[in-house]
């Protein structure tokens, strides 16, 4: 098996007749943090939704861990070890924090049983002590940062090999964003692979190994994160800094 955990070739996808993603090719290696940056409407979320199976690709191939998964149902893709932390957290607002996490452990319970879920729950509480304090509270009453942590913990409950995060920093205070990114880095140290989609390009590229820049459905630049940070076009468009010659 190659070290390419996720591999996408010539992917076209969109909604109805609207083609949002045009001829996307990319890969994510095991143990990497890969950042996908781009403006609003560039197709970043569409890309993640296509990978996880919420949207059927129009053409092209997606393979995860060497297995083609471009026609598989969401449940199967999640069970094979790919998890998405959706944009806008999407927690189950009317349910308690612990119930949210148990639902995240749905595929784990099917495969390994209830004991594994309890074990994983304890691990998430260790990683996010805040959630343990609030385990009986309804998820809808949590603050934005706590909800983001809950969404991340819920995705991690399935013991994914690849975690995809859609705009984890949106709408959060700078201090909390720092915590979130610290956790992402910590995840990688524990051996996880992360595909991070962000508008906050600087923060994302700072913790990433490699990056892709998506613009109106196409990948226009790719390379090691340090190169992208130094690239004058990327700086101008996404890092808010005009390089003065």
């Amino acid at each position, binding site marked *: 098996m190659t070290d390419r955990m996720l591999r996408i070739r010539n992917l076209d996808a969109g909604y109805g007749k609207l083609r949002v993603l045009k001829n996307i090719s990319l890969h994510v290696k095991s143990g990497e943090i890969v950042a996908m940056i781009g403006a609003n409407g560039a197709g970043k979320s569409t890309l993640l939704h296509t990978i*996880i199976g*919420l949207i059927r690709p129009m053409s092209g191939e997606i393979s995860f861990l060497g297995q083609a998964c471009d026609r598989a149902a969401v*449940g199967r893709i*999640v069970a094979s070890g790919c998890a998405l932390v*959706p944009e806008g957290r*999407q927690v189950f607002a009317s*349910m308690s924090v612990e*119930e949210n996490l*148990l*639902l995240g452990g749905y595929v784990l319970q099917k495969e390994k049983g209830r004991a594994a879920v309890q074990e994983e729950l304890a691990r998430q509480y260790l990683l996010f002590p805040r959630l343990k304090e609030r385990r009986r509270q309804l998820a809808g009453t949590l603050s934005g940062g706590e909800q983001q942590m809950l969404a991340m913990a819920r995705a991690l409950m399935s013991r994914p090999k690849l975690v995809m995060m859609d705009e984890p920093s949106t709408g959060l205070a700078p201090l909390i964003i720092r915590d979130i990114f610290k956790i992402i880095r910590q995840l990688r140290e524990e051996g996880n692979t992360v595909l991070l989609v962000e508008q906050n390009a600087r923060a994302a590229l700072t913790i990433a190994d490699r990056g892709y820049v998506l613009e109106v459905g196409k990948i226009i630049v790719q390379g090691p994160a340090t190169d992208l940070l130094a690239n004058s076009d990327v700086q101008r468009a996404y890092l808010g800094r005009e390089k003065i010659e």
Partner: protein
Amino acid sequence: MTLELFFQYLFAGITYGSLYAIVAIGFNIIYNTTGIINFAQGEFVMLGGMISISLLQFMPLGAAIAVAVLITMLIGAAIEMLFIRWLVHPSVLRLVIITIGISILLRESALHIWGESIRSLPYFYGNEITTFSLGSVNISPQVIWVILACAVMMVGLNIFFRSTPIGREMRACAANRTAALLCGVNTRNMVTLSFMLSAGIGALAGCVMSPITYTQYDSGASLAIKGFTVAILGGLGNSMAAVAAGLLLGIIEAFSVTVVPLAFQDAVTITILLIILFVRPHGIFGSSEAARLKDF
């Protein structure tokens, strides 16, 4: 009005009210997982009654009811798989029309199978004229059966949704379908399950009510309207509120006969439905903000 009469009406109201509440809960269960109103809900109640009456020739009452509930659940599942499961992103209007079609289909099938005659299960205990006295009020034991059965169903459903994994997954589906999908939950199976569950509780209600209300091929339609009124009155999707609203409607209906002739009893319900739809479409217990987020 004498005190005895007052209690007599009250018990009648509670009896019918529990039935309406069960039909409304059936609406809510399906509404929560699919976002649609299943207008065939009343037909499940009719099917429960009819099937159990037919089975009574072959087996004792308890078994007949249990088998009738099971068969109705299977019919519910079959309907979902046949007419709804394979649709890709169906619109709300399309689904509603489909359920109306299903209700007509079930009613007409019942007409062919059982004919137009009015049937009923025997009283579970005693007969039509058996009563026992509660203080100064005479009550048929069947009334107690109905109230008991409805109460057990409500408590059972509550436990099911609160503390079993499948109940939790169904609630997750209702709270956020996309997120449930992302957890790996098969949301389509949850929809099938919600149809089975609604069909099952509807059928059981149909069985316990049959000795009092009788069962006919078209008795589902008026029940559906009553149940729909209650579901709206309580606020769509809120099952606990449906219980309160159901009892309220049942009691209003029962007492309405002291003011208007009996023939106008259904008109009272329809009037309440219209007033609620005009004035508080989100129900007396629902919040208008939450209602604005719903597409139906």
